[in-house]
């Protein structure tokens, strides 16, 4: 069964403390891996799309990387405003829908 698993479920960091979030997937024929940010009570906000192993994307303090089995979202010197739930989703061959992981709830303490 196609599956997306994110770890850790929750992460608490001090401001400026860099870390990484993991998204592992077991799908046949990956056609895109997506990262979204979701603030409480709001809809997911698009961050990145990765299509092939070795690809990297950056935006401000965030950097996403992709291998054949997993993706990492690296957060460098985070600020309190980076606190949110980060969702990973995959699109696989033969389907247009996104299959989401359960998310990582990130808290950055000042």
């Amino acid at each position, binding site marked *: 069964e196609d599956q997306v698993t994110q770890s850790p479920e929750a992460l608490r960091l001090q401001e400026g403390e860099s870390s990484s979030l993991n998204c592992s997937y077991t799908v046949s024929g990956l056609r895109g891996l997506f990262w979204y940010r979701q603030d409480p009570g709001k*809809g*997911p906000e*698009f961050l990145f799309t990765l*299509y092939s192993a070795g690809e990297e994307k950056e935006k401000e303090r965030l950097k996403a990387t992709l291998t054949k089995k997993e993706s990492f979202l690296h957060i460098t010197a985070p600020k309190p405003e980076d606190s949110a739930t980060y969702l990973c989703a995959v*699109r696989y061959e033969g389907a*247009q*829908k996104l299959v*989401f992981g359960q998310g990582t709830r990130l808290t950055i303490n000042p």
Partner: protein
Amino acid sequence: EAEVAQSPRYKITEKSQAVAFWCDPISGHATLYWYRQILGQGPELLVQFQDESVVDDSQLPKDRFSAERLKGVDSTLKIQPAELGDSAMYLCASSRALDAKKETQYFGPGTRLLVL
């Protein structure tokens, strides 16, 4: 910047009542999705439209849920009758679908449903 619009933002209803949610996608987006997100989990697809046609409704509980997109623009998702387990966030997303396999889905703010 164009956004996906949803209404209402919040809905409280009693079980066995009917509820309806509305979504207006980004202008020009042919593909529209309805997702359900239970607290603490990721969104799960309920139904996908390409223009006015249903592409995927395999996860839609058809005994109580219905969705339509009559003119291929805005869409309505209905639940009748609502059950306690339907309490969740209902998210609408859209994409251009010129090459759907590479298109990004943009989400609206969601409708938070509470069934009492």
